[in-house]
């Protein structure tokens, strides 16, 4: 049902590597979000965007950065991964009329 896609689903990388987590949606939603979650714990907002060329930091401090060059695409980048970045990253979007959020399947990142 959800038309929001995240890749990769799982990623194991070495410390110091640069990585980009992809998130795309085909629903034409203006608002997109990145959440970070440790297994079974609550979700914390790290970045959000209300439209093209609009990005903001969320409630949880993060060393990652985001960009929003196209409506459908909201990638998240870590310039230099560290073991403390090990977590699940969930992307979400919502449209103008309906405030309900739709989530992607998530990327489970492990930095060794």
């Amino acid at each position: 049902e959800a038309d929001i896609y995240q890749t990769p689903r799982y990623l194991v990388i070495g410390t110091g590597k640069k990585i980009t987590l992809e998130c795309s949606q085909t629903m034409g939603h203006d608002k997109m979000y990145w959440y970070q979650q440790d297994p079974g714990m609550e979700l914390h907002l790290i970045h959000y965007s209300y439209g093209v060329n609009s990005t903001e930091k969320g409630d949880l401090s993060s060393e990652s950065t985001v960009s929003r060059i196209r409506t459908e695409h909201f990638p998240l980048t870590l310039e230099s991964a560290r073991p403390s970045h090990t977590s699940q990253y969930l992307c979400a979007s919502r449209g103008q009329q309906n405030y309900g959020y739709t989530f992607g399947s998530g990327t489970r990142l492990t930095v060794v």
Partner: protein
Amino acid sequence: GIQVEQSPPDLILQEGANSTLRCNFSDSVNNLQWFHQNPWGQLINLFYIPSGTKQNGRLSATTVATERYSLLYISSSQTTDSGVYFCAVGRGAQKLVFGQGTRLTINP
């Protein structure tokens, strides 16, 4: 900001039992959603329910906005219902705030 509290934090039941999960929030909202996170980490939207009652199969939800709480009912539980259930709320264009979740375990 808005505070969200879910109860109970953990719930263990036998297959076939019914359960009620509660979500309390500290301020008026016009967005409330219930999600189920399965063991693979996927977050599935169950209900968008800022007020009123909705039903979907064995699941139903009720939000009493004036009293700032919502309830999720699961009837005739199945093992596939296991996972973590999250309540999340928001107001207007503000960001969604999540509760800490209820971990539900259904034993066969």
